[in-house]
């Protein structure tokens, strides 16, 4: 090999951003200056002409490092004893079997096509097991679905397509065989081959099954590891950060409560309701959701605990949104003026109406003697709900806390 070619080969790198499988065509394209599309077309054509190219591709995938890396997958695969054993265990019996079938039937092209494809598949397994995390991720999410390996979900049609193709090819093969041997007696070799296949399955089947199970277990372990990593990331981003903040503001009890409540709610939403942290929708469509949102915002803005109990649920329409606005004002009002450390919200959806109560155990007030600005708030709470045919009642006495009762008839009635 001339030295400059060797040097060029050493500097060959599989491309990361422009790849369909392993980025090998990208690497060739970059080294030769030929457009990657032409390289791919050429590669696919040569694969059809000779199965050997599939094998060559897999070898290249193993041997050429990824961009920005100096180690190859091969350097790791060679140490992967378990993986190599697994590949050998499946491939050697299969290859022997194919060779025998091809020999008995005198159809050389079976061996011709299957040898390199099988070997490439073996290398594929090694690649999958030994690629680094980022590439594994790419394979799992981009390449494996191409094989139609995802049986649950939208890829079903791919499976059907594959089965159809398999049946067509199989039918074609049988037709060829029958045509080549016109007498029934000459079909014996086919029977023999079938028996051989059956024998191989009987002998090696259980073993293969355990190997497949191994593979599945490995895949599940990987999924679990991914989940764990996500969980750890979330706990770090939210819980640990909040704990650090709490430690720093230990001399400000109200802030500690606010932080703890906010964190608690986020964690709860994540653990029990399945909302991914940090992406809770700011726009509610259901009443209970809207109240939870209100709770979150008031707690965050005013450092006060809001206790929520909702019975029943229904979709939010315009009047109910007005009801929520009124409830928000009442809650904020209580948070600001009552002096209580907790506000309770109770909402109940009934067939004809929705009722909502905002209650605090603070200092309370006498409605006749409240200052102008607070009276304004009370009025605006009322006007919000009366506009839609609702009703607001404010009950309070000095020293007894306050309760704002809101009623809204439902537009869309349920049976």
């Amino acid at each position, binding site marked *: 090999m001339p030295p400059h070619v060797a040097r060029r080969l050493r500097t060959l790198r599989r491309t990361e951003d422009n790849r369909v499988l392993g980025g090998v065509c990208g690497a060739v394209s970059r080294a030769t200056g030929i457009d990657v599309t032409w390289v791919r077309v050429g590669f696919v054509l040569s694969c059809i002409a000779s199965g050997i190219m599939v094998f060559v591709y897999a070898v290249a995938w193993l041997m050429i490092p990824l961009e920005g890396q100096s180690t190859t997958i091969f350097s790791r695969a060679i140490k992967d004893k378990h993986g190599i054993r697994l590949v050998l265990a499946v491939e050697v019996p299969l290859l022997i079997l194919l060779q025998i079938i091809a020999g008995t039937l005198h159809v050389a092209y079976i061996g011709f096509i299957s040898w390199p494809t099988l070997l490439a598949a073996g290398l594929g397994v090694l690649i999958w097991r030994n690629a680094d995390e980022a590439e594994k991720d790419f394979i799992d999410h981009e390449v494996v679905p191409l094989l139609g390996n995802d049986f649950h979900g939208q890829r079903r049609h791919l499976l059907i397509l594959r089965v159809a193709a398999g049946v067509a090819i199989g039918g074609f093969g049988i037709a060829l065989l029958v045509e080549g041997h016109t007498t029934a007696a000459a079909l014996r070799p086919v029977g023999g081959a079938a028996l051989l296949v059956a024998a191989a399955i009987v002998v090696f089947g259980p073993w293969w099954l355990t190997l497949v199970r191994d593979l599945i277990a490995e895949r599940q372990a990987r999924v679990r590891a991914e989940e764990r990593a996500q969980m750890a990331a979330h706990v770090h981003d939210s819980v640990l950060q909040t704990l650090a903040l709490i430690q720093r503001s230990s001399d400000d009890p109200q802030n500690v409560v606010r932080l703890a409540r906010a964190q*608690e709610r986020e964690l*709860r939403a994540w653990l*029990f*309701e399945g909302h991914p942290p940090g992406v809770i929708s700011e726009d509610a469509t259901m009443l209970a959701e809207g109240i939870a949102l209100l709770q979150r915002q008031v707690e965050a803005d005013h450092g006060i*605990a809001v*206790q929520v*109990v*909702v*019975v*029943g649920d229904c979709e939010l329409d315009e009047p109910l949104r007005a009801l929520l606005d009124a409830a928000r004002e009442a809650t904020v009002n209580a948070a600001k003026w009552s002096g209580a450390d*907790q506000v*309770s919200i*109770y909402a*109940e959806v009934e067939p004809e109406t929705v009722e909502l*109560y905002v*209650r605090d*155990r603070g200092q309370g007030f006498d409605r006749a003697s409240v200052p102008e600005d607070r009276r304004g708030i009370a009025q605006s709470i009322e006007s919000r709900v009366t506009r839609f045919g609702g009703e607001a009642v404010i009950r309070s006495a000095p020293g007894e806390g306050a*309760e704002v009762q809101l009623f809204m008839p439902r537009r869309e009635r349920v049976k």
Partner: protein
Amino acid sequence: MSSSGEGSLIGGRPRIFLVEDHAVFRAGVKAELGDAVELVGEADEATAAVELISERLPDVVLLDVHLPGGGGLAVLRGVLPHHPEVQFLALSVSDAPEDVIDVIRAGARGYITKTISGPELLQAVYRVAAGDAVFSPRLAGFVLDAFAHGGATPAAGLDPELDQLSPREREVLRLIARGYTYKEVARDLTISAKTVESHVSSVLRKLQLSTRHELTRWATDRRLV
């Protein structure tokens, strides 16, 4: 020995047993209850809890719903058949409706969340020790929700009374859900505090004895939201 909760309370502090697997929380509860109660023991998992409770027979067991070794349910099932006089107050951080409904149906006299304040916790303990039921606003909300869908078909041959809340019971529960104390409920409905207690106890009984399969279904439905 006087075995009823009320009997042993006269002139004394309630004897408390704490079942909780988080050491930090255990320490917090102990600090909050302080000298107002007599702590007779603690356990951090179900099997040990059953053994110790059966031996020491406290007035009230503060029971964490989520516990290694079968959860709070295992403790309830291990103790109550042999010692029905022991009262249980369930504590949980989860608020998952099915957990709550399960422990109540297994015999707990009340349910409170772990964010409850110290004085409220103490009040709840005293109330349970006296044989009454403790409904937090949230539990009241759950019960209202679970019994809300009226016109249910009660299982044949069973007391239909058990499957419905009386209008008065609903009123009491709604006020509790709104954050009213028992005393405030009594004043609002102009009934005696004792009557409020009896309504709440009756709701608790219905909750425990009702065979409405809606209860279970409701709890599982809620879980899936």
